[in-house]
């Protein structure tokens, strides 16, 4: 069977979100770089894969998908085994908790954390745009409140959806990984359960492997 294809470089956070899932399920895949400097992402060949002209796109045979969290769900659903069941769709209660914390990642956590990554790393290194400290300060305040909720959750449960790892935990990986390169990484020190959860995640072979590509000199 032809390996599945991920379009977009492994150094991008949203691509990494998909790659971590592929590593967890142990499926063969190929990463096809999309060249930003030549605006390959806006050319017809890529627009046919992702009509919004962004990355990642994902191909499995005839199926072409986009939106990294949707791609993640597909991978985890298709390649689910008894040992690797990251969506828990066979159990109503567990699946609901996975969905809650996947949505929390997208709409609470990432909203607070991603701007810090963008302002501190991405804008300066990739675009030569200086850090907007006001945005960073506001985001740090928001993130502290979010981490209080996470601390309460993770002091009672080993992982976000319960006592089992799930796509909700995986989804936090790429942006958090980059956050740890910013001067604000020490924020997690005030939230011991969150810190322990993150450190445990980073011990996973999938995370170790994919994180090596998330630290380029140029984004």
């Amino acid at each position, binding site marked *: 069977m032809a390996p599945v294809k991920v379009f977009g470089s492994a150094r991008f956070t949203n691509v990494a979100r998909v790659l971590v899932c592929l590593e967890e399920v142990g499926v063969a895949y190929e990463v096809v770089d999309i060249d930003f400097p030549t605006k390959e992402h806006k050319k017809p060949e890529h627009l046919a894969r992702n*009509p919004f002209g962004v990355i990642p796109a994902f191909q499995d045979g005839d199926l072409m998908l986009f*939106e990294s969290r949707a791609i993640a769900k597909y991978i985890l*659903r298709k390649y689910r085994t008894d040992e690797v069941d990251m969506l828990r769709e066979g159990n109503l209660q567990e699946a*609901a908790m996975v969905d*809650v914390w*996947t949505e929390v990642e997208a709409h609470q956590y990432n909203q607070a954390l991603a701007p810090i990554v963008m302002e501190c790393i991405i804008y300066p290194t990739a675009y030569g745009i200086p850090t907007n400290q006001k945005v960073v300060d506001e985001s740090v305040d928001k993130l502290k409140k979010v981490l209080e*909720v996470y601390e*309460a959750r993770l002091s009672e449960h080993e992982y976000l959806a319960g006592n089992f790892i799930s796509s909700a935990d995986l989804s936090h990986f790429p942006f958090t990984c980059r956050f740890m390169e910013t001067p604000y990484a020490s924020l997690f020190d005030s939230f011991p359960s969150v810190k322990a959860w993150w450190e445990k995640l980073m011990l996973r072979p999938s995370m170790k492997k994919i994180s090596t590509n998330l630290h380029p000199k140029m984004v």
Partner: protein
Amino acid sequence: MNYINAHFVANTDSHNSLIKMAPMKLYGWAVSPWMARVLVCLEEAGAEYELVPMSRSGGDHRQPEHLARNPFGEIPVLEDGDLTLYQSRAIARHILRKYKPELLRSDNLQESAMVDVWVDVDAHQLEPIIRPVVFNVIIKPFTGSDCDQDLVDGSIEKLKKTLEVYEARLSSSKYLAGDFVSLADLTHFSFMRYFMATQYAEVVEAYPHVKAWWEALLARPSVKKVMAGMPPDFGFGSGNIP
């Protein structure tokens, strides 16, 4: 009346009885587009539920009683037996998974993937554009703030580009995930409802397949019922401020 997943329960007298589970409770204010997203799914599923009204202006969502349900202090919140859920799309998925899984297409890998794609397109491409327009054009005049017209104008330009993608999609399939209605379509309703009440509705109507798809959504009994609780001014005009 629906009997929901009647439970086989052994009580302390050691004889088994079938009990009807308590209806689900949905907490929040019905004018909220996040709330309405869930209400549409409840109606589509024909599930039994109780709407527990809360007051936004009264700050009910910031009270300890509500924070115990949702530590983020937001609505909607769903109570279903022992489960307490928040985040509107997570609640929507639970309701459909339990009562109307065909709207998620969980049994079909390709179709469920397309549902997930277009639910996320709404979340990450469309809603971030139309939400600030709704906020600036409808809400701000009532709260005494100035409309940020530059932001609105910029959003409308972005919207046109995004709608081109929707138009292309809906030219080749009846609904967003395929030729079947799904959560992907339903999830769009609530924010669009308010956007289409602004003077910028014509921007959407310029795309014939998007327009037809929108009108098909409006014709659904579930949507009509939920829309009745969503006055175009969020209730501000009539004094029913949420």
